[in-house]
């Protein structure tokens, strides 16, 4: 039994590591094929995010929504649900938090800031609740319904901004300082990056996910439904209710990610004609993080670092920044193919034959 556990743990760690390595390796081959210098490219990423305070700050800044989006996807995964709708829930939450901050301007900071953050979580949660309800009541597959909800969110938020919260520059007005997460102190120590207090919200989010899923009865039920809906139903759990709950909490995490962008990074919301990409990156983060809170943080750190450092890579090594997206896509493919990676590793380590 202990031998079995050892093997499982070893495997769960090895697959993400091998996937990241293969993803970066393929990225290097693509760069070589295009006549670029991969060592210079990867070197410039590492150099910028570890040695330049501005890029270090921007990496942590980029991690904040990425961690929360990753938690959103991972949370739903634990109940056996694939929430592709993080992107839409994030935008809904972003708009809600910004709108709340602007409309209730004048309230003291101690009330307005938490209220705006909660507004983002609640509206994001509602945006996740609906696909959950459709799944529980009408058996509508959540992958399809959340994709549809993404586009409804994209167009609806643009419409609301244009007609009710519009200011010059195709965006909402800037939120009042009393609702802002931005910090001169954090900006100063990172040479003017946009790092903000939202990282505390992200840390709370990580702890919250772990507490809910592994330390409460509710979390036990959610995970149980994820393992086997039929067995859970037989044990007397309300599967439909758990599906709705999981999607709503997942959406709330996504809404929080949006609130961090609205109250922290940008201080407003622009009229988006395309998605932010954070939600889709959240899927990659959750998969690489094996749907665990700590894994999500590590994966978010990797992807945020690659994306922030990618800008330096473009200017130093001349490699288009899109290479980073290619590497992330390849990592998802390798993670998805874990069956083959495990098979190959067992084969090569010689254990597959017995």
């Amino acid at each position, binding site marked *: 039994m202990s031998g079995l556990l050892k093997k499982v743990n070893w495997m769960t760690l090895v697959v993400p590591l091998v996937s990241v390595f293969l993803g970066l390796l393929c990225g290097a081959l*693509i760069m070589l094929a*295009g006549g670029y210098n991969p060592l210079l490219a990867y070197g410039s990423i590492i150099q910028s995010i570890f040695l330049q305070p501005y890029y270090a700050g921007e990496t942590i800044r980029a991690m904040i929504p990425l961690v929360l989006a990753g938690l959103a996807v991972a949370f739903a995964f634990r109940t056996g649900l*694939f929430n*592709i709708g993080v992107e839409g829930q994030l935008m809904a939450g972003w708009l809600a938090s910004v709108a709340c901050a602007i409309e209730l301007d004048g309230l003291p900071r101690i009330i307005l800031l938490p209220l705006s953050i909660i507004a983002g979580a609640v509206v994001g949660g509602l945006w996740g609740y609906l696909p959950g309800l*459709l799944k529980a*009541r*009408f058996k*509508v*597959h959540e*992958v*399809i*319904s959340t*994709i*549809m*909800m*993404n*586009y*409804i969110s*994209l*167009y*609806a938020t*643009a*419409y609301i901004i244009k*007609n009710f919260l519009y200011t010059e520059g195709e965006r909402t007005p800037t939120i009042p300082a009393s609702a802002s997460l931005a910090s001169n102190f954090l900006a100063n120590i990172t040479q003017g990056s946009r790092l903000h207090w939202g990282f505390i919200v992200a840390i709370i989010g990580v702890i919250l996910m772990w507490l809910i899923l592994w330390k409460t009865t509710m979390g036990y039920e959610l995970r149980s439904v994820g393992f086997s809906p039929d067995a859970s139903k037989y044990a007397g759990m309300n599967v439909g209710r758990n599906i709705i709950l999981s999607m709503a909490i997942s959406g709330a995490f996504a809404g929080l990610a949006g609130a961090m962008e609205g109250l922290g990074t940008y201080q407003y919301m622009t009229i988006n*004609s*395309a998605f932010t990409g954070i939600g*889709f990156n959240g*899927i*990659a983060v959750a*998969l690489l993080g094996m749907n665990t809170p700590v894994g999500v943080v590590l994966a978010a750190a990797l992807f945020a670092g690659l994306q922030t450092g990618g800008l330096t890579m473009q200017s130093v090594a001349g490699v*288009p920044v*899109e*290479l*980073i*997206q*290619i590497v*992330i*896509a*390849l990592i*998802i*493919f390798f*993670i*998805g*193919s*874990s*069956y*083959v990676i495990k098979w190959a590793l067992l084969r090569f380590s010689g254990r597959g034959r017995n």
Partner: protein
Amino acid sequence: MSFYEVLTIIIPSTLLTAAPLIFTSLGGVFSEKSGVVNIGLEGLMWVGAFTGAVATLTLEHAGMGQASPWIAILIAGVAGGIFSLIHAVVSISFRADQTVSGVALNFLASGLTIYLVKMIYNGQGQTPYITNNIDKISIPVLHNIPIIGPIFFQQVTYTSYIAILASFAVWYLLFKTPFGLRLRAVGEHPAAADTLGISVIKMRYIGVILSGVFGGIGGAVYLVTITSNFNISTIAGQGFLALAAMIFGKWHPIGAMLGSLFFGFAQALSITSQQIPYLDRLPSVIMLIAPYVLTLIVLTGFVGRAEAPKADGVPYIKGQR
């Protein structure tokens, strides 16, 4: 403006926007009928549009003139087919979660195409404009038919009618030939099909590759008839719209075609509604979100149950029940 004049604006515009959706949604039908969920249609359209742009530009440069966009569409079909092989290998042979693989395919497509554009065109984020696009024309003879002619056969492109004919061809292929029966069998009950000697893996590969070919064609048609150049916002959600049209059409080729026409109609209305009396008072956002809301309603089963193929999304592992 009379109602008749309104129709002469909206119908040609509907046909134009629907053509890429029809091709791509037919691709979706192939893949999903064989039992492989294809969220990657969006990415396949990216690849198709990118290939369409680069191929047209190259052929123009080589002096092919008017034929360039047509040849480019075919090349894009091949490129889409090759690109979809990644989805096929990962989700069929490597047994990855098909949704995960589809998401990664979209990621890879948007990253890779823009990366290549920047490499080919010296760091610019977009291709030059093609000069030989497929123009709106009046179809000879047919446009002289009174009443119907000006509505359906003026200011239209051939691609729209090719797309509609293709949907009938796909219907015939899927429902009237042994090949179609086998493809549907591995999507409904792969174990039974396997028992009867049909290679589940082979049929699913064919389904996914065909979805790539059609998705690639759809993306290229979008490029040569509508946008004329390729950049990061060229295919903004068209593939997901095609996915919705396929579901709206209940996984049936003719249904997918009608769904695409309907979504094309909604898009046409959202673009042209400002010129049309009464409709100009309606917020355009209603037309923009209508396809997605309607798809959700269809899925809830209020207007007839939409059933996916039984084994859609389930990797086939020999000997496992």
